[in-house]
């Protein structure tokens, strides 16, 4: 567009406006707004005929229970537990089936490569590295996501999320944050990057920053499989079989609650220190309950969410699988790089109740949290190939039997997974949303520091007591 000079008359308009403005007082805007409201009222009065039934509508009756002081929180907890429980019991079998098929493909393809006389390192890198990484991610992540996301989307389309925000509003207000942070936090369960973008619904810059910086404390879908797997292998295994899946769901709910607790604590700390200020009030409309549109739900949850997240994980997992294979097969001074690096990290890992391999996996998995467990397993298995890991009992044998994991390891890993730094996509999204390197750095390093402190404390206390 060409910049034209001010047209004749422009200055005159602004001058007269300046003069007129002096005649006006601050009720000026009120007068205008009142005129609009009065007009809207008159028009609506003429066009709307209200045949309101006696008594509250069923929407209002449901809301009275769902947002009540007594039932609001129990209903949310039971809802969350149910969703997780269905995910856990529903995902187990398909996960095994997918793993079985994909690892069989690995065997067959590797066999074919050997038969064709390919160099061992080509076969190893491609099939035992890249492919195995992919297979793990798909087998571990696809089934839970394909169950969790549709349920989450149904709740969203029904209109439950604003009720959650309504129930939790007072908590966030108490810690000096915005009530809508409950909404952005809920979106974070799906994906933290999406949660950070959703923070745009918060108008006040101060409260928006708090919501962005703390979004990471709720586990996203990339981290749920890690939590679920640990819960199944360690918590469910020590519970009676009939209650196993309930115990697993219960422990994941506990982790989620710890995450929400940290969200509140850190929000409180931020609003008392670097982001000082009062909580601003807002009107939250409770939308009517709407019948979810089935086609829309399948599209949103399976295409937009499941396949999107899975694709991202696959893109990240392929190189990670390759890196792990290389680290395990390149030897310097008689030791593989995996062994050297994890050996170096081991003392530090032990302090946190973890070990060197887990830390190494977290470093490799910075691009995407969802590949942490596959990376750990690949690192443990190293060059030792052909271990069929298509069942949870095999996984338990590997982790507990061969690498000395205890319940403490599982608990610390769950806490670390919950609290540590956000994935690279989320960090990048934070940078785009805040436009500030300083806040992005804080958003990445603060959770990591908290994760170190918490796991260190837990590990030391447990070791002291035992």
């Amino acid at each position: 567009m060409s910049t034209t000079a001010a047209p004749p008359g422009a200055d005159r308009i602004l001058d007269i406006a300046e003069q007129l403005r002096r005649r006006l007082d601050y009720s000026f805007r009120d007068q205008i707004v009142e005129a609009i409201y009065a007009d809207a009222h008159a028009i609506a009065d003429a066009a709307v005929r209200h045949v309101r039934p006696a008594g509250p509508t069923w929407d209002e009756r449901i809301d009275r229970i769902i947002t009540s002081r007594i039932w609001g929180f129990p209903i949310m907890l039971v809802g969350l537990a149910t969703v997780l429980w269905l995910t856990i019991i529903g995902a187990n079998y398909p996960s095994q089936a997918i793993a079985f098929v994909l690892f069989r493909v690995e065997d067959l393809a590797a066999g074919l490569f050997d038969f064709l006389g390919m160099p061992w390192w080509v076969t190893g890198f491609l099939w035992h590295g890249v492919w195995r990484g992919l297979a793990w991610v798909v087998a571990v992540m696809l089934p839970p996501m394909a169950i969790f996301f549709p349920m989450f989307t149904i709740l969203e389309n029904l209109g439950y999320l604003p009720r959650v925000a309504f129930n939790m509003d007072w908590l966030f207000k108490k810690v000096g944050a915005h009530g809508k942070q409950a909404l952005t936090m809920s979106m974070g369960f799906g994906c933290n990057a999406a949660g950070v973008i959703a923070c745009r619904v918060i108008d006040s810059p101060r409260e928006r920053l708090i919501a962005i910086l703390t979004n990471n404390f709720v586990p996203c879908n990339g981290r749920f499989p890690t939590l679920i797997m640990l819960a199944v292998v360690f918590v469910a295994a020590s519970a009676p079989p009939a209650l196993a899946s309930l115990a697993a769901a219960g422990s994941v709910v506990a982790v989620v609650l710890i995450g929400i607790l940290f969200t509140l604590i850190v929000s409180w700390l931020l609003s008392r220190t670097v982001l000082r200020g009062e909580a601003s009030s807002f009107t939250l409309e409770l939308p009517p309950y709407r019948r979810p549109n089935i086609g829309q739900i399948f599209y949103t949850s399976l295409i937009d969410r499941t396949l999107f997240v899975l694709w991202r994980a696959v893109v990240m997992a392929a190189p990670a699988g390759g890196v792990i294979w290389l680290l395990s097969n390149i030897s310097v001074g008689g030791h593989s790089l995996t062994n050297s690096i994890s050996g170096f990290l081991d003392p530090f890992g032990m302090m946190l109740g973890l070990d060197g391999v887990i830390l190494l996996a977290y470093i490799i998995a910075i691009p995407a949290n969802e590949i942490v467990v596959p990376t750990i397993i690949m690192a443990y298995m190293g060059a030792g190939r052909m271990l069929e890991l298509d069942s949870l009992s095999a996984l338990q044998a590997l982790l507990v039997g061969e690498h000395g994991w205890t319940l403490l390891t599982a608990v610390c890993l769950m806490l670390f997974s919950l609290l540590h730094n956000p994935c690279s996509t989320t960090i990048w999204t934070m940078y785009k949303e805040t436009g500030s390197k300083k806040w992005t750095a804080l958003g990445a390093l603060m959770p990591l520091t908290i994760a170190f402190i918490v796991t260190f404390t837990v590990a030391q206390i447990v070791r002291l007591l035992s």
Partner: protein
Amino acid sequence: MTTKRPKSIRRWTLPVVEPGGGARQLGIDTAEVDHVVCLAGNPNTGKSTVFNALTGLHQHVGNWPGKTVARAEGGFEYDGKKYKLVDLPGTYSLLSASTDEEIARDFILFGQPDCTIIVVDATVLERNLNLVLQILAITDKAVVCLNLMDEARRKDIEVDHERLTADLGIPVVPTVARTAHGMPELIAAVAVVASGAIKTKPRRVRASGVAADAVEELATIIEETYSGLPNARWVALRVLEGDKKVEDAIKNGELAELAQATGTA
């Protein structure tokens, strides 16, 4: 080209449209469009659902206010004309300085859409009309999509859309976007407004008192300076409120260009 006198809105009746007929969804293919149409409305009135119904796209629909944070664009074709559809963030008003309201207001003012579809929730009409009246202060070319008629019916609320059409001076089309009810009629209404086949007579709010006099005085001068500007009263109001963006538009000639563009259209 023959000049046909545009039909007056008061005699405007809904064109008869075969259900589902006529419109073709174009998804995101918005190259070389004939008309630009935007979607405005209060949060959670179903703008994204209307957007998806018109374009065949799958903009994420969630049942919570404030979900559409980025501007979505899509397209559809009707009666041989291509339309670009822009989904604006939902706002309760256009008076405050929040980002959402600025995006919506700037698009309606400077983006010069050929038609603005104002999606309103039929169950809470009065509150939604506040925004409708504010939009009608900026643009003549608008259509009201009276959405969620099924919920209104369920709540025993009857809305007389013909009365609304007469009072607002723009077409009002009752719809249930979720099931695509009323979408063909909506598209037909958009087409006649965008092409100028009918001339709307948008309701303009007149305040009384000192404030109104000041607005009136300034608006007269603005109208003299920029003949053809459809929203002199609104511009006057904004200038009196000290709206920097509108003041800048006066200074750098952007408003003059706007007046020229609408004047010759």
